């Protein structure tokens, strides 16, 4: 049994990845540093003044601390990539990306989407969705408001889970509420319209068609943009600033498995899929949803379903998803089935199909370990050399170098 802290350190280094040491980021950082260095330094205050200011600050801070109401945690979570700054555009391609906020809130930008964080303060967090979809799971914190902007629409969040979609080309907009309540503002809406759990809203600008549904979001529709054919119940009569009771509000167990999986409720998501028939569900999914289902199954320990879902993702026509599925199949073989040989095969497949993929550093590190443990030192050294060449700032570079140097 390995020391758990050592095991943690390995996983942590892996999750951290190369961080900000990529060449592009270093160049930008260097340029900023030189710019800052070329400015004349600010004149430091006199010693006594400095101490007086510090003392005053301590007094004010102590007073503030003494009378501060229970303030919410500000924000910040961690990830293996750069933090988001206000105004920075975030784009996703084949993988979803998650923005984690301290306090338990989370925004998941779905594949092929663009968005940014347009405002942040302890009182207000505002996200702008330019294109694609964002799934929000907001934990209510007193004193903090959340707003998601999508084109002409503004979604005011109360403490809930919902998905906003926008097609930048057509301007089409949609929102599905999975839990709680939101307030919506937009064209042809009289003031703010409340949408509660299980309700959906669709808008298409070319037809001017507004649709509102009071049923649980259809899982099958969650990955496609809204269409003008959807239930044409105009919202002209929607009451401003009133919470409308949904006639058939969905319980959490009735919401889409994708929403449950995205909210980290993997076992519930898998249970829902199995009730519907795993193979039936899988056959109707796109490649990214197959991977999402595979991940949910893997995280909940259902290795058999994970294996099926990833294999199904590999059979799709999307090469990016296929490669990603190969990486995850290696994880299933290793973590769930203890089949090192099979894991080696899948890792090689992943690296062949995506030699510079997002998970290539991790794949090479794992492959290097597995080959070393299986006694194939020549193979391990070859992969280690590749690792050093392709990920010079990677978390396992020291180990890879040692391995390459240990050779005959």
């Amino acid at each position: 049994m390995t020391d758990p802290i050592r095991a943690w350190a390995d996983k942590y280094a892996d999750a951290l990845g190369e961080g900000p040491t990529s060449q592009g980021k270093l160049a930008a950082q260097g340029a900023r540093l030189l710019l800052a260095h070329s400015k004349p330094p600010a004149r430091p205050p006199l010693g006594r003044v400095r101490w007086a200011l510090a003392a005053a600050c301590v007094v004010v801070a102590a007073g503030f601390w003494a009378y501060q109401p229970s303030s919410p945690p500000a924000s910040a979570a961690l990830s293996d990539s750069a933090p988001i700054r206000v105004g920075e555009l975030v784009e996703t391609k084949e993988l979803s990306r998650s923005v984690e906020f301290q306090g338990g809130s989370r925004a998941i930008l779905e594949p092929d989407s663009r968005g940014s964080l347009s405002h942040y303060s302890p009182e207000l967090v505002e996200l702008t969705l330019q294109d694609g979809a964002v799934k929000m799971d907001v934990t209510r914190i007193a004193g903090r408001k959340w707003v998601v902007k999508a084109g002409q629409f503004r979604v005011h969040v109360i403490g809930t889970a919902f998905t906003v979609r926008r097609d930048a080309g057509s301007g089409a907009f949609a929102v599905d509420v999975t839990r709680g309540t939101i307030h919506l503002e937009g064209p042809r809406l009289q003031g703010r319209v409340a949408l509660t759990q299980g309700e959906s809203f669709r808008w298409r600008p070319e037809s001017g068609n507004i649709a509102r549904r009071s049923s649980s979001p259809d899982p099958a529709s969650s990955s496609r943009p809204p269409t003008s054919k959807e239930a044409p119940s105009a919202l002209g009569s929607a009451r401003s600033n009133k919470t409308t009771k949904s006639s058939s509000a969905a319980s959490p167990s009735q919401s889409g498995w994708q929403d449950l999986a995205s909210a980290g409720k993997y076992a519930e998501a898998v249970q829902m899929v199995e009730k519907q028939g795993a193979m039936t569900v899988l056959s109707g999914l796109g490649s990214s949803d197959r991977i999402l289902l595979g991940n949910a199954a893997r995280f909940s320990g259902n290795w058999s379903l994970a294996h099926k879902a990833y294999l199904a993702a590999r059979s799709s026509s999307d090469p990016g998803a296929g490669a990603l599925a190969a990486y995850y199949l290696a994880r299933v073989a290793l973590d769930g089935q203890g089949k090192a040989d099979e894991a080696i095969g899948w890792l090689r497949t992943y690296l062949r199909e995506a030699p510079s993929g997002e998970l290539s550093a991790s794949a090479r590190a794992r492959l290097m370990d597995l080959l070393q443990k299986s006694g194939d030192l020549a193979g391990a050294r070859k992969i280690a050399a590749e690792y050093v060449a392709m990920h010079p700032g990677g978390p396992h570079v020291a180990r890879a170098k040692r391995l390459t140097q240990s050779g005959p």
Partner: protein
Amino acid sequence: MTARKSQVEPANKGWKSPVTADKRAGDNAVLMNRVLEEPRLGMALLYERFARDVNRLVYRVLGPDGEHDDIVQQVFLQMIQSIGNVRDPERLSFWVRSVCVNVVRSELRKRAVRRAFFRSAPPLEVGDLSTDVESADFLNRSSLVLDRLSAQERVVFVLYYLEEQTLPEIAEVCGFSLRTAKRRLARARERFRKHMTRDPRLARLVEEEDVG
């Protein structure tokens, strides 16, 4: 699971041992002179030479952080201001690590004070981005545990477990005795283990990794 430490020869670490001579000592002397004579050009050269190492060390100790670039900038400005104090060019890279550790440690202390006064220190960055929800969750949970360590403990812990430095190296870089380094590492380890076990999901994620 990889048992890195047991397979590691300390002399082959990613960082050069501070007790071994820097083979680029000649270059170091030239570099130091350039920094002293022409600070702006010197800064560029210094950055080119040490940017990757400084970024990596700051990143490993603090994790993904909205103030990362500012802290790296502080390290380089500190280096420019005090490079005249380096007596032996052979020890330039060791000195760079010391400056880096001092700046990061100081930043961690400031944050601890802010947390004490404001209960939650509002960082500049407002959220973090991940391509992998599982990794983000793991990093988030790990960060909460690391935040429970003192600045000194965290630096020693990260240098030992993530940078794979030996205790004599850590003691020298951090500027305290070997005995103190051992004591701090033992305490950091004990506290880390205690807080890690309080987060069952984190413990489970580590166990999953260990199976592999």
